[in-house]
């Protein structure tokens, strides 16, 4: 860390209660190891460095945090550096998930920067012999408000100084009306590094003396390793050893190809588990194994509601497992030096991984350093990072640094999946489409109940409601995916709302407005419809237009779509989306996230589904697992309609929640065929 200058130290940030319970349930790491920590440093060169435990995995957090610090500290954006996700350097952090980076850590950095600004004002007051109230900060200098010629730069103020100030929790922050950086479109601070190949990802870490590992993987899920003969592999060129640590066996070689070749001649016996379920068994399994009902919404009386309804509608919906499929397969390098372990791993939870490794090797946490380089996508799944454990174990056995990197097939097979889910929805409504009763039973696969609960409650005004989420058996390992179960829950609910519109012959936008009183919801829906040029019509209008709304991580979103269908191919042609995430620190970044969410949601709507049989993933590569390409991508317009005085909420996840329903609704609007099961293209003839 830099010498001299001004350091702002403060308490580490813990999550708010709901996020904390999620994190605890998911990962069990909620306790900061060390307090307080340095959040901000202003150097004797006048530049600022912000420190945060967040990781950069595409959401542009480095830029967002830099903008927040630049604005509060009155510095140009290029005078702010951001150091992320090195457990030896940055404040403890629970992990990068749940769209908390801007809301929580960004806020802490703003306070740190405002504290630094106040300290600099005080230093300048002494230096210029003026009361601090007559000074202000601009462009890296403190100057007299009366006489702009009387000024002193931050660098001059800090020359020869070595100051530490405590972060002031209740310091006055810059009001939104005075922002000069936040809220304005800005280029990413790391764009050039990305465009020149200089950005370093886990896959790119090369350490002197490093061995390349090829781990002997099970041929099917739950298979147990029996006899193994590695004698031929040990004699192959470049092979240093075939390392074994309990059930982990890996060829370690001087090059990646040597390791792969030698691994291919290892003779391993596996005891495979028979009778494993396939993807075709899922709908039935979700129902038959349902347990642990949990009501996420309960009011009034369903019985009264359905009795008073003019009409009742019942439907079922199904979404399959999907792969996160980030472009960068997981990779890690581990190095032991004098009993201290350093691991480079693109995990969303560097501090959580540090705890796990310390526990595994029974060493103190300060003997473990985790560095998360750039992360080549993850969309939630890189909280879990098994290759880091493998690399650390193998490096200890080998006495040399070891790199473990998943191939594409390993990444898809051994990562986690978004759970399959089944929904039973029964609604009661009046002849004008206003809801009087809503009953939803949601069955999500996997033992992570918080996944299925997210976004399961209906935001519509309905006096009699019960939404119950069940946990069901999961043949595949489930994990986090953008919005967790939110996108699946929204798919079922928003298609069902469209069915009500169809039943009463009311335009789908109008039908939703009749049932939505929340002003922020109405605003995003009206904004998206207006941008889209939506004109009311009785569905199906044969125009191929669809709409859906959503709420995720406190942000409101609405999406309108135009689709065309040719044979078994659906082309999403045009999308207009509106997002209200409160104060948008980085509009360019937020819009980029919504665009990406729409493309990702499009894949799940039209073609993505993880297929498996007898413990084997059948589509573990891009030949069989189709994800959207540029010629599938629609023209997207994003309207950011949040109020600057409303605190920031997430922008990385909400954009996906309405997408699959809007597409399904648009296909119905065009063809008159209702699609209640994803992915849609598997059901087109």
């Amino acid at each position, binding site marked *: 860390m830099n010498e001299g200058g001004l350091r702002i130290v403060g308490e580490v940030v813990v999550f708010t209660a709901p996020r904390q319970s999620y994190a605890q349930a998911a990962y069990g790491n909620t306790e900061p190891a060390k307090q307080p920590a340095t959040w901000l440093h202003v150097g004797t060169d006048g530049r600022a460095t912000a420190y945060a435990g967040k990781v950069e995995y595409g959401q542009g957090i480095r830029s967002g945090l830099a903008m927040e610090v630049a604005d509060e500290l009155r510095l140009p954006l290029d005078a702010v550096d951001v150091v992320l996700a090195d457990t030896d350097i940055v404040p403890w952090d629970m992990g990068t998930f749940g769209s908390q980076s801007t809301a929580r850590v960004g806020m802490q950095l703003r306070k740190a920067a405002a504290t630094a600004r106040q300290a600099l004002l005080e230093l300048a007051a002494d230096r210029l012999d003026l009361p601090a109230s007559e000074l202000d900060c601009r462009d890296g200098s403190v100057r007299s408000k009366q006489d702009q010629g009387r000024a002193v730069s931050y660098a001059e103020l800090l020359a020869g100084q070595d100051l530490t100030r405590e972060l002031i929790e209740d310091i006055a922050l810059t009001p939104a009306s005075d922002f000069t950086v936040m809220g304005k479109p800005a280029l990413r601070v790391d764009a050039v590094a990305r465009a*020149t190949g200089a950005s370093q990802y886990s896959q790119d870490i090369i350490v002197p003396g490093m061995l390349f590992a090829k781990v002997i993987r099970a041929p099917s899920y739950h298979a147990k390793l029996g006899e193994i003969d590695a004698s031929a592999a040990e004699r192959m060129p470049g092979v240093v050893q075939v390392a074994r640590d309990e059930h982990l066996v890996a060829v370690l070689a001087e090059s990646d190809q040597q390791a792969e070749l030698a691994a291919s001649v290892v003779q391993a016996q596996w005891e495979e588990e028979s009778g494993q379920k396939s993807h075709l068994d899922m709908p039935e399994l979700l129902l038959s194994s349902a347990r642990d009902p949990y009501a996420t919404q309960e009011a009034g009386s369903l019985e009264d509601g359905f009795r008073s309804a003019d009409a009742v509608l019942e439907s079922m919906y199904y979404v399959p497992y999907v792969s996160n499929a980030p*472009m960068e397969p997981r990779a890690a390098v581990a190095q032991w030096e004098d009993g201290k372990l350093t691991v480079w791993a693109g995990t969303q939870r560097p501090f959580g991984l540090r705890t796990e490794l310390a526990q595994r090797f029974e060493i103190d946490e300060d003997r473990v350093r985790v560095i998360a380089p750039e992360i080549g996508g993850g969309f939630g799944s890189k909280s879990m990072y098994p290759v880091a454990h493998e690399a650390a174990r193998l490096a200890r056995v080998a006495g040399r640094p070891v790199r473990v990197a998943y191939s594409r097939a390993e990444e898809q097979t051994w990562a986690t999946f978004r759970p399959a889910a089944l929904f039973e929805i029964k609604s009661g409504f009046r002849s004008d489409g206003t809801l009087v009763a809503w009953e939803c039973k949601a069955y999500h696969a996997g033992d992570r109940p918080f996944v299925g609960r997210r976004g399961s409650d209906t935001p519509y005004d309905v006096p009699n409601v019960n939404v119950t989420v069940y946990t069901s058996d999961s043949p595949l390992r489930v994990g986090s995916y953008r919005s967790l179960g939110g996108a699946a829950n929204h798919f079922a609910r928003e298609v069902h709302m469209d069915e009500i519109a169809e039943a009463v012959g009311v335009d789908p936008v109008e039908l939703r407005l009749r049932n939505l009183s929340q002003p922020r919801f109405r605003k995003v829906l009206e904004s998206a419809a207006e941008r889209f040029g939506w004109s009311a019509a009785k569905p199906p209008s044969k125009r191929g237009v669809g709409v859906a709304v959503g709420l995720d991580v406190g942000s409101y979103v609405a999406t309108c779509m135009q689709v065309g269908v040719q044979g078994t191919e659906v082309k999403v042609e045009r999308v207009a989306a509106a997002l209200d995430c409160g104060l948008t620190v980085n509009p360019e970044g937020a819009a980029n996230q919504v665009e990406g969410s729409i493309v990702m949601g499009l894949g799940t709507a039209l073609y993505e589904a993880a297929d498996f049989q007898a413990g084997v993933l059948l589509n573990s590569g891009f030949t069989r697992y189709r994800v959207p390409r540029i010629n599938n991508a629609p023209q997207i317009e994003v309207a950011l309609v949040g109020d600057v005085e409303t605190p920031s909420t997430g922008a990385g996840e909400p954009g996906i929640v309405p997408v699959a329903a809007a597409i399904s609704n648009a296909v119905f609007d065009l063809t008159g065929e209702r699609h209640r099961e994803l992915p849609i293209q598997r059901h087109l003839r």
Partner: protein
Amino acid sequence: MVALQVNGEERTAEDGARNLLSFLRFDLGLTGTKYGCGEGLCGSCTVLVDGQPLRACMTTVGAVAGGSLTTIEGLAQNGELHPVQSAFVEESAMQCGYCIPGFIMTAVGLLSREPNASSAQIREALAENMCRCGTYQRIQRAVERAAGGPS
């Protein structure tokens, strides 16, 4: 022993069967060229061989012996970004950025054949690459910008 040029420098590989992507990344340390799928489907490993895009993951060093290779690290000249690189920066055409070197190399290859490529030609050429973050609209705009505007 195989000789080739990489970003203007003479390089040699001991083994002609060496995978080109591994050679670039691990032997030369040019890690800007990425591994994404190993099957030639995602385009993250795209490099230029004598100006034409090639999937390094599906190729051996021997197959490009004597050739002149350009990787993402070799595009900028004298500290000046290549116009395609600048366009990606200006359009914020990236999120995680992992696929971006591959997209840029594919686009540079296209524009060297078709300097005024149409929007449709750009879309067709870039459909060989994948971006899971879904920044396609921005990538399209960036390459159109580099090609002299949308058509």
